[in-house]
């Protein structure tokens, strides 16, 4: 005998009753699902933005194949730099367990567009011989091209902002001429200042940075060396610096941008608001459905149905709504995330978030059904005789 989807899902007659009660009023059910989907999209986009921002805030650090970062003492992030003496580089190289150390230059600079107008950019100068730092995801041009003097690479995302339409465009950085020889794809920046990649020498020349100074010393450990031990040794010999393992520096930068600046908090607050809005919508509709079917709950109680059965009907309504509302919501969110890849703000929705959001939706719907349960339990079963 055909007993409907809900029954086959193992929810019994309570599940069937829940499903049919929901499906009975089709337009309201659609409103419920749209409401839940909307909440899911809202939450997914906010958390996705948060993850996207986090990703953008640390992408250059994470794509640098260094084991350790030596940064000026008190540095709070990667972008806003202070000078470090070249001496620190030589001292670092002398520490046992350090296989290699090199300097990395990171400087804000004014970029003059070929067609006029200025843009503030973040210039990254890296030693191209080691491959530790520098551009990645190169979609036009070759890394080798950066070895020629006064050449730079930018990301496609920022090409328009920077007034660059094709390879070979000549621009001015800090009033020095430079030529764009390559494009990367998808290297975003949390500060919204475009990244400009160059060789160390070019960066030094363009920014007229003193030979004796740099911004960071990055390097690798000897194979088999104990990272924490070498880190301690570096910290001892370089008292005016902070020595971070790669992930520690990424965390330092991420925490600064996401939490110290409040940027992350505001996104998370929006996510919580999305959750609350969703909860109110769902509570409202589940409550209306429950009130509509109140006499049936009275009949059940009069027949002697245990409280658990009534709970099961209402919770099944919540679970069914959550499941059917989550799917279109997450589908729409994934589409929007896909679309964001070519936009200014990246929305990241990893599979764990998509699945985790189902849990959130479920909890949201179950919480929203609590008042309905109270309403259904409040009715006097004797009322079924008094109509």
């Amino acid at each position, binding site marked *: 005998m055909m007993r409907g989807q809900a029954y086959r899902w193992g929810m019994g*007659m309570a599940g*069937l009753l829940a499903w*049919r009660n929901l499906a009975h009023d089709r337009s309201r059910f659609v409103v419920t699902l749209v409401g839940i989907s909307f909440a899911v999209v809202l939450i997914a986009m906010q958390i996705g933005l948060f993850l996207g921002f986090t990703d953008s805030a640390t992408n250059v650090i994470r794509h640098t194949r260094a084991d350790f970062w030596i940064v000026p003492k008190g540095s709070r992030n990667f972008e806003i730099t202070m000078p470090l003496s070249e001496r620190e580089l030589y001292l670092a190289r002398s520490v046992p367990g350090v296989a290699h150390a090199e300097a990395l230059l990171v400087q804000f600079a004014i970029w003059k567009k070929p067609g006029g107008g200025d843009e503030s950019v973040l210039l990254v100068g890296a030693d191209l011989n080691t491959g530790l730092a520098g551009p990645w995801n190169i979609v036009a041009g070759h890394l080798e091209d950066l070895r020629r003097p006064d050449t730079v690479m930018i990301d496609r995302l920022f090409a328009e902002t920077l007034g660059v339409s094709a390879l070979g465009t000549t621009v001015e950085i800090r009033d020095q001429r430079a030529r764009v020889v390559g494009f990367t794809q998808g290297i975003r920046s949390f500060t919204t200042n475009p990244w400009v990649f160059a060789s160390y020498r070019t960066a030094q020349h363009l920014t007229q940075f003193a030979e004796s100074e740099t911004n960071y010393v990055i390097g690798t450990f000897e194979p088999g060396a104990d990272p924490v031990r070498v880190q301690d040794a570096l910290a001892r010999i370089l008292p005016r610096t902070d020595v971070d393992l790669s992930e520690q520096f990424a965390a330092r930068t991420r925490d600064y941008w996401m939490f110290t600046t409040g940027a992350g908090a505001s996104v998370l607050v929006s996510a919580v608001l999305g959750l609350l809005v969703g909860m109110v919508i769902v509570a409202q509709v589940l409550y209306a459905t429950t009130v509509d079917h109140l006499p049936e709950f009275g009949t059940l109680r*009069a*027949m*002697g*149905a*245990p409280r658990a059965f009534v709970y099961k009907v209402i919770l099944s309504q919540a679970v069914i709504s959550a499941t059917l509302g989550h799917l279109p919501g997450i589908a729409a969110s994934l589409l929007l995330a896909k679309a964001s890849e070519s936009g200014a703000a990246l929305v990241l929705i990893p599979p764990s978030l998509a699945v985790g959001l189902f849990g959130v939706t479920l909890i949201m719907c179950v919480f929203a059904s609590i008042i309905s349960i109270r309403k259904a339990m409040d009715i006097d079963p004797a009322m079924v*005789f008094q109509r």
Partner: protein
Amino acid sequence: MSAAALEARGLTLVYGSGETAVRALDGVDFQANAGEIQALMGPSGSGKTTLLMILGCLLHPTAGEVRVEGQLVAGLPNPALARLRLQRMGFIFQSYNLFPALTAAENVQVALELKGHDLGEAPALLELVGLGGRLHNFPRQLSGGEKQRVAIARALAGAPPILLADEPTAALDSINGRAVVKLLAQLAHEQRRAVVVVTHDPRVGDLADRIVHIEDGRIQC
């Protein structure tokens, strides 16, 4: 001799208190036996529904006691009362109280599942009330009499020894009304159930084994 299916002594029920208090029942004795259908008759407001609710363990009397198959119900906690209703009684209501979103068979299956019975018993129960061909119809697709017969099939799920019906024919024309009461009488006689039917309709009373008249909360002799 075994205990009566239902036995009540000295039932008194007062709704409200003070000036607005209504004495709906006043010292009612009542008994229902297996194999017997009784009609409970009386004018509007005489206390019929009130008595039925007390017999059905849905309302506690102000005074007096109720025994279900010999067991005193006073003092039983609510879950135990619910279990007693579920396992020992079937209810039939004036307005059917079917689940509108479920088919006839599914309506019966809700009761079967609650009582821990096999859902496959539903077709036979509907067959018994003459609705073997309407298993998959929704209540809105059934006539009043058919709806009430689905309700009876639902009340019969799990074979409870006691059936309590409050004006089951009030919404039906006299032909359908008589058919429903005949069905209840047949269930009492053939399946040895104790059936109590509240009704206004004297033609329904004629089909009962016994008529109990009630007026102003008192049984009339």
